[in-house]
């Protein structure tokens, strides 16, 4: 079947099998940032944005992407570099395999609501990391979210 959707800002037409997942389609189209870490929707590595919401591309049918706006890390390179530089400044991007999924969910979180530490952890709970122990990621996220705030307001 044929679908039509916006991928990273560009209108895209694709011929897909009925059971193609968005994950496989995205990698086929060169979005190698999207990773797969499990088969049970537990790891969050495959997170992308669909119509602004963070979704697990491994269990999202490509057929359903018809008419949608899909964004991967490749489509938000500027924001990725910006938030990524906070991660890098903590040394918190270790093997990097969980980074794309985490960054997409952080961007979704930033757009959705303002949260305290516990709220941030809960929002990102579906993004597993085995290398960093999560502390460095939280330090980076907090610094990133409060960027541009004047020191005396903090």
């Amino acid at each position, binding site marked *: 079947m044929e679908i039509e959707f916006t991928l990273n800002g560009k209108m895209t037409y694709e011929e897909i099998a009925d*059971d193609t997942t968005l994950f496989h389609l995205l990698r086929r189209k060169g979005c190698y940032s999207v990773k797969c870490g499990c088969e049970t929707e537990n790891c969050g590595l495959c997170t992308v944005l669909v119509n602004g919401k963070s979704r697990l591309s491994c269990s999202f049918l490509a057929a359903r992407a018809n008419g949608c706006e899909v964004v991967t890390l490749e489509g938000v390179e500027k924001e990725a570099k910006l938030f990524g530089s906070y991660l890098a400044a903590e040394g918190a991007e270790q093997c990097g395999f969980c980074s794309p999924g985490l960054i997409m969910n952080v961007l979704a979180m930033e757009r959705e609501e303002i949260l305290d530490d516990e709220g941030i952890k809960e929002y990102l709970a579906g993004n597993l990391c085995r290398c960093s122990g999560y502390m460095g990621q939280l330090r980076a996220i907090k610094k990133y979210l409060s960027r541009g705030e004047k020191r005396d307001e903090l």
Partner: protein
Amino acid sequence: MIRFKNYVKAENLEEAFALNQKKSSVIGGGMMWLKVQSRVKMTLVDLSGLGLDGIEEKEDEFSIGAMCTLRQLETHEGLNACFNGVFKECTRSIVGVQFRNGATVGGSIFGRFGFSDIITCLLALDTYVELYKGGLVPLEEFCRMKSNRDILVRIHIKKDGRRAVYASQRMSKTDFPVIACCAAQKAGKLYVSVGARPAKAELVVLEENQNCLKEELAKRASERFTYGTNMRGSGAYRKNLAEIYIKRLLEALDQEER
């Protein structure tokens, strides 16, 4: 891997129902469990084009479409205001936000899963399931029904002034629950549901008794359920947990009142 043969986006409920009568068909709601169900010759009937993804607050009830996501349930202001935030409580521990952006109310309920926080919570409220052919069925009755090829269209939760509180215990914060409990109170009656026993949630209704200690009430309530053993816990432990959490929920309801 998700594997199936045909994808059909249903344009109306009649079409969805007709397609679903074939043994090789599966309804695609949130599709979070599709990998487990995958069969090579399967037809997937997608309901996402039927406009069933809204939460409507009416004067006497909430009408929630089957394609509403768990995240919508979690964040809906009206629902949480009306029921003391139980909808946030019973959804927040489910895997992660991305998962809840996909999983649907219909999928959670139709599956009648033992581990379902959602069913446990809804059972303590005045909830009805709206089936396409079967019409309105009280949730408790629906849970006891055998799974058939009907389509779950909506659920209805009556706004009857019930106050509800929810608690669960998990081995890690986003794991399946070891036990799930919900208690609601209205007009001298206590509605107590316990799920993840590990079997699916069941409801017990008690008379509120001011003279009876909460511990005693909780004990009586917990004894009305049966409990089993699985990887996450023993039946004996679950029974004790149910008693403890029901007591705590009853105490919380009391506090709320004051």
